[in-house]
């Protein structure tokens, strides 16, 4: 009883430590790659993996991200603007957009889409590579799997997540502007000026920080679960589920942490 309580107590720091170890090894391998310790051709091979990751996570997700942004604009105008207008506070819509879209739902919704789309793909791909002895073969032949597999995914997902967050926010604002003429009693110049004035640099900074934090957290967790899969093929879907739940929990926890720190 006491030992199982003790084991549960140490499970979280141990799990965090393992992921921190993966982050450290990936960053150190990425650094060695970039400064040329592995040579130019190894860097070029990893760069191809990086571009493929950015293409898959970023470019191919543009449509669902813009769709989500437009859907969010419908919610913001349909619920947010109408509610504020009912209270006679429609001039505060810009502030609502800043708080809800720019600093909260923009980064969070993007991260959830990236987890669902790319996070699962990373875990299942790497787990398949582990079971197919591809990672063993890389290690046995002197290829650093952290440089060739983990680092391109870390930097690819982080940069794509930041770009996608900005795209989602831009499409939400665009959707609101497109929907505004259909709302009753709205003055477009005042509406546009309220939106622009409320977009504070501090909010934009917080959005970028969150997008980068989420973008680094997602690949760390999904790569970890892909690398550490067991030797049974049934482990792959389990690893993918663990990766999704772990990444979502981490993103929510980080979101709460950033909110607490930012608001004192």
């Amino acid at each position: 009883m006491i030992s199982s309580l003790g084991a549960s107590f140490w499970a979280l720091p141990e799990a965090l430590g393992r992921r921190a170890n993966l982050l450290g090894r990936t960053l150190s391998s990425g650094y060695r790659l970039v400064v040329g310790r592995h040579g130019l051709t190894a860097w070029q091979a990893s760069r191809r993996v990086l571009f493929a990751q950015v293409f898959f996570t970023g470019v191919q997700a543009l449509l669902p991200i813009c769709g989500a942004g437009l859907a969010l604009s419908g919610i913001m105008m349909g619920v947010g603007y109408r509610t504020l207008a009912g209270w006679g506070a429609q001039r505060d819509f810009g502030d609502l957009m800043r708080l809800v879209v720019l600093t909260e739902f923009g980064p969070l919704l993007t991260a959830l889409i990236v987890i669902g789309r790319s996070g699962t793909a990373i875990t299942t791909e790497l787990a398949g590579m582990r079971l197919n002895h591809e990672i063993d073969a890389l290690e046995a032949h002197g290829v650093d799997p952290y440089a060739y597999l983990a680092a391109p995914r870390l930097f690819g997902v982080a940069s794509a997540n930041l770009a996608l967050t900005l795209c989602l926010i831009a499409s939400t604002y665009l959707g609101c502007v497109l929907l505004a003429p259909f709302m009753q009693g709205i003055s477009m110049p005042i509406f546009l000026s309220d939106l622009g004035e409320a977009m504070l640099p501090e909010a934009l900074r917080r959005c970028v920080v969150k997008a980068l934090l989420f973008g680094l957290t997602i690949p760390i967790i999904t790569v970890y679960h892909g690398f550490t899969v067991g030797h049974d093929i049934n482990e792959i879907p389990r690893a993918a589920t663990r990766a999704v739940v772990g990444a979502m929990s981490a993103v929510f926890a980080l979101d709460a942490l950033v909110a607490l720190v930012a608001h004192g």
Partner: protein
Amino acid sequence: MAEPLAGGALLELEGVRGLSLRLLPGEAVAAVGPLGCGKTALLRIAAGLEPCESGERRLASERTAIVFRQGGLVRNITLADNLLLPLYYQLLPSSEAEERSSAALEAFGLAPFASERPGGLSNDSRILAQFARATALGADLLFVDDAFSQLTRSAAAKAERWLKDELVKGCLAVMMTGVEAQAIPQLPTRIVELAGPGAAS
């Protein structure tokens, strides 16, 4: 940088899963035994893919290679890139790496498939490509995990011929596994029989 071992040995195992052996250049050793007796586990420890929980493993080789009976090649890159990748990490100039990779593929009759991905190739080609990778790398220590039982007779003969040549030249040491001694190529091979889970006799 690996420390040199006494007598020029490339690999020494001492009490690893109950087994002790020394492997010198030009020597071949095969661990044979029934399914589940721990052959692959022993080979993975020897190759440094698993930690050595009991006993001691010492390695003096700088260029090890491994041939798996299944998989072992990165599926989303071409066969040529599978051979080139380890050479890039050896800091070889790309022209030399490409030369060595092409020559190795040619030697195993795989040149026509150089731009194919492993998934589109036969099992024979995939296993021979791993031998070609060892050739391109200039491996001095090769681990072969029960690959010969998966090869057709002609492909096995090709791999066996290459192994014999390299062993005669004295520039390679080989550690193999197999379910039975007949599945091991006819080389001057020391056979180690693994009787039960983790035990050697």
